[in-house]
């Protein structure tokens, strides 16, 4: 693949030696539900989807040494239960979560366990310089509610490929290639044995220092476009469009992200009539105060949350 890129196209203004180092740190991950994140939309997700919550949250992280830390986290507030009717049902819950993290350049372990027995575990291991193994699992005591996924990532000179295996006979593979210093294209396929579904998707990402534009199409009917513009060092604006051509569902959202010296403020407005804001204020070294608000005018659901985070 690298030899094909040694011939510089006449339209680019960058010098030929730069074409060899086109390694863009973009990862392309699978679309369907069990996957928690996709890095191709990373900037847009960071600005438009902060971790909004309702209730009180307290997190305490204690570092025992450079690599190892423990965390204690308390949450009290209404939790939404998925219901068939249009009304949202909320049940007040309180839970405590204990966690342990070990972060090494070659190995990363992340574990969180709740009082009701739910374990959330992640593992990332660099087997060789280019091959990494990632695994994550959500285990519960209820039968058939646990999920696990293992993925092997291979990083080439200017491409990345990944193969994933999940429980329920879920197989996925994806590949992304840089074609110019700013543009990358990728594709993915997945097969879900349990639901007998398979799909294919394509994505493209164009970024410069000031902006990132991404587009993604999948055979499950999803079309997602996003655009993030870094207006200044402290401010960036993001917008996002999600369209499902099977169910004819469209959502557009627009948001901002202010990263100031003492705080980080993110806000967004949605075409579903949802307005949200998330503030993280640094009160002191290691002490952060969090405020979260989400007003859903369409469903008449208003959520407010506050919290405190102690520790680095």
């Amino acid at each position, binding site marked *: 693949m690298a030899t094909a890129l040694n011939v510089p196209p006449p339209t680019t203004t960058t010098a030929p030696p730069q074409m060899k180092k086109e390694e863009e740190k973009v990862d392309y991950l699978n679309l369907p539900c069990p996957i928690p994140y996709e890095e191709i939309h990373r900037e847009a997700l960071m600005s438009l989807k902060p971790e909004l919550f309702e209730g009180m949250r307290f997190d305490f992280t*204690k570092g*025992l*040494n450079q*690599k*190892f*830390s*423990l965390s204690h986290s308390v949450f009290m507030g209404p939790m939404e239960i998925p219901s068939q009717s249009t009304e949202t049902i909320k049940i007040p819950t309180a839970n405590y979560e*204990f*966690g*342990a*993290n*070990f972060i*090494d350049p070659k190995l990363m*372990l*992340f*574990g969180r*366990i709740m009082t009701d*027995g739910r*374990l959330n*575990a992640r593992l990332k291991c660099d087997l060789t310089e280019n091959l990494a193994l990632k695994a994550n*699992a959500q*285990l519960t005591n209820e039968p058939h509610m*646990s999920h*696990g996924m293992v993925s092997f990532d291979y990083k080439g000179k200017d491409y990345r490929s990944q193969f994933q295996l999940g*429980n329920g006979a879920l197989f996925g593979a994806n590949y992304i290639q840089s074609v110019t210093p700013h543009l990358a294209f990728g594709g993915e396929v997945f097969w879900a044995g349990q639901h007998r579904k398979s799909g294919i998707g394509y994505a493209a990402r164009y970024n410069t220092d000031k902006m990132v534009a991404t587009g993604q199409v999948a055979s499950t009917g999803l079309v997602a476009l996003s655009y993030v513009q870094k207006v200044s060092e402290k401010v960036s604006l993001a917008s996002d469009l999600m369209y499902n051509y099977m169910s004819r569902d469209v959502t557009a959202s627009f948001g901002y992200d202010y990263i100031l010296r003492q705080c980080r403020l993110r806000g967004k407005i949605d075409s579903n009539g949802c307005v949200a804001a998330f503030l993280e204020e640094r009160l002191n070294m290691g002490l952060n105060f969090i405020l979260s608000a989400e007003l859903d005018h369409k469903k008449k659901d208003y959520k407010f949350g506050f919290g405190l985070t102690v520790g680095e």
Partner: protein
Amino acid sequence: MASKVALKTKGKASGKKASPEEKSMAQNLKEWSTWAVKKAKVITHYGFIPLVIIIGMNSEPKPHLSQLLSPV
């Protein structure tokens, strides 16, 4: 070999292989892998956090046991 056929009759009618011995071997493999996955799930559920703690307590510089338990 014939005894294997008698043991594994769990009602899973896969019916892919014609010979009864091959059918039971495929069933065996499936059942063993299911058993292994179940055990692995239980082991991970109970053992992952202790594993992280053990690896962390043995990393340099070694933290003290009292640091693990104290709230400060």
